[in-house]
């Protein structure tokens, strides 16, 4: 197996187009600093995020996965994020129950104006992932 080099985490962030992606943009335009470990993937609505994507990302070696969408009640598609929330909770429970680290996965509500919050979440979560450590799946060959 490959040797571990010094740990700078890779964190996938599924961002909904209307709120969280815009929020992340605001964070940038207002030059808020947060760790570049966060790798954004844009989806139209957080409800597009199939739990299998998160699973694939984890098994594929992502050290953490963040899903961000509009605040409950503010979904651009009316109710999408309520389903996202249920699916996410379900996935997290599964992960926890099979003895993996649920704290590698996070769901956040970030509105189009909440650049501050996005930067905060990104920073906190990256910190958390650094505590949890490198995703062991990255060195696993028998997946």
């Amino acid at each position, binding site marked *: 197996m490959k040797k571990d080099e010094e740990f700078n985490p*890779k964190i*996938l962030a599924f961002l909904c187009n209307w709120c969280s*992606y*815009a929020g*992340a*943009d605001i*964070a*940038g*335009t207002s*030059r*808020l*600093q*947060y*760790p*570049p470990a*966060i*790798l*954004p*993937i*844009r*989806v*139209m*609505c957080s*409800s*597009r*995020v*199939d*739990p299998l*994507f998160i699973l*694939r*990302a984890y098994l*594929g*070696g*992502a050290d953490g996965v963040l899903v961000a969408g509009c605040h409950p009640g*503010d979904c*651009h*598609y*009316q*109710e*999408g994020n309520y*389903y996202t929330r249920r*699916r996410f909770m379900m996935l997290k429970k599964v992960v926890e129950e099979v003895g993996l680290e649920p704290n590698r996965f996070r769901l956040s509500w970030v509105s189009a104006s909440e650049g501050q919050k996005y*930067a905060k979440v990104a920073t906190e979560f990256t910190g958390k992932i650094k505590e949890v450590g490198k995703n062991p799946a990255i060195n696993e060959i028998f997946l």
Partner: protein
Amino acid sequence: MTMKIGVYICECGPNISEKVDIDKVIDAVSSMSDVAVVDRYKLLCSSDGKKFLEEEIKKHGLTHLVVSACSPKQHEKTFMEVCENAGINPYLFQIVNIREQCAWITEDKDEATEKAIRLTKAAIRRVRYHAPLEKKEIECNTDVLVIGGGIAGIEASLQLVSANRKVYLVEKTQSIGGLLTNFEKTFPDMQPSSALINQKIQSLNNNENIKVFTDSEVEEVLGFFGNFEIKVKKKAEEEPIEFDVGAVVVATGSNIFDPKKTPQYGYGKFDNVINSLEFEKMNLSGKISLKNGKIPKSVAIIHCVGRNEKKYCSEICCMYSLKFVRYLTNKIPDVKVSNFYSDLCLPGKSYQKFYEQTKGNTDFVRSMDVKITEKDGKLNIEYKDETGKKSDLSVDMVILSSAIEPTSDASKLAEIIGMSQGDGGFFAEEHEKLGPVSTSTEGVYVVGSSQDPKSISETMVQSEAAAGEILSSLVPGKKIEPEVKVSHISESLCTGCKTCLSVCSYGVITFNEEKKISVVNEAICRGCGNCAAACPSGAATIKHFTFDQIYQELMEAVK
């Protein structure tokens, strides 16, 4: 045909070039398979930049384009147009945001560069799996159906016809005008409402662009934004009238709460207990009198009738109760008026003033547990005052200020149009802030008190808003472009479990009973992708955000 991907990195002046080592990015991605060209440019969104890209695409015969620049919210469209001009499908393109979410979030150039490389690689791997999507253009009908001939419907119609749009106005009673025709005056200006409504009805009647159907009800609404097929049934006529419109405005107004449901007020039991609408009519007739013809010397107005039952504040009752005080004191100088209320709702600049001007002519009794009985020919109001002390008052007449509620046939109409009903059974707007007059069905708008209890002025605002949206989105001669990044359900893979149906917020998925599979109406799908995530077998997918595309992107990002 072999794939040739062109990758272009925008310096964005100093914005990107100073924070990201662009040459490093170029080195890192050049070796990726199918990548034909990688280059940098000072400002790709400039007209020179666009020209440069266009020529590059042609020169190298590129099949796919990746641009690492700013946020897609800034320039995705810009570069998609470039693709079109250069003759490649705009969806064989991916923009990478290395400015807002990369260059601008860290001072560490190496880190920013590393991230820029990851994101660009991910985009390159994603774009390989892009499929061309064809823009659809649909002819649209610019006529409008307005349901409800009250002030809300009339105002919307006026706005539309004055812009030379054809409007079909459907009213279920025998005449238009709605509730307003029962009022002598409107609050808070106390101007005659006849002035307001009649003049509007006048200008409608003089307009040849409007077709009014009274005694009529909408029977069927099929189709989608720009192309609705309507059936209207006129009472006493056999055949329904059929016509097409591009948009629908729902302005069916509201009812008042039936006080019989709150027996403590003795409505329907005691002659001189009447509801607000009955009082408006009595007042309009010119003579306010008791059942026995006598003039009332004392009148009580009970507020919030039905509020507990309805569980919401009807917003306008306080104001029209104050209006009633004015009616009474104008017509019966020596009358004693008492208002029994629990809270007063007086929002806005003018309402408070109206209250100040009126409160001198009446008592305000803050009370609870109001109960009305009859005592030797007079009405006796038993109540608890603020301190909880039992007390009572004897009056000649009681007016019940009833809550506002949806019309009895609201749910039937919701059914026909496919609108959802929200709290209290009022028609639900798409979004309280983002879409206050649109509904979950594109092209269907809801205005006035059928959406929520409202004053006349608020109603006017909504009617004009809806008209405005329609005028700007349905333009004669201009085709509408439905979303192309929509859901698609594979007929052969669908197992017919209806999971997608249950999660779709827009009801654009229907079930084919004979084939036992779900079918998407791509013309009205909004493309959120909820169904694709919900479908366990991958039968449902969403164009341009397919499993493959996202999977390839994320695997490269975490590589």
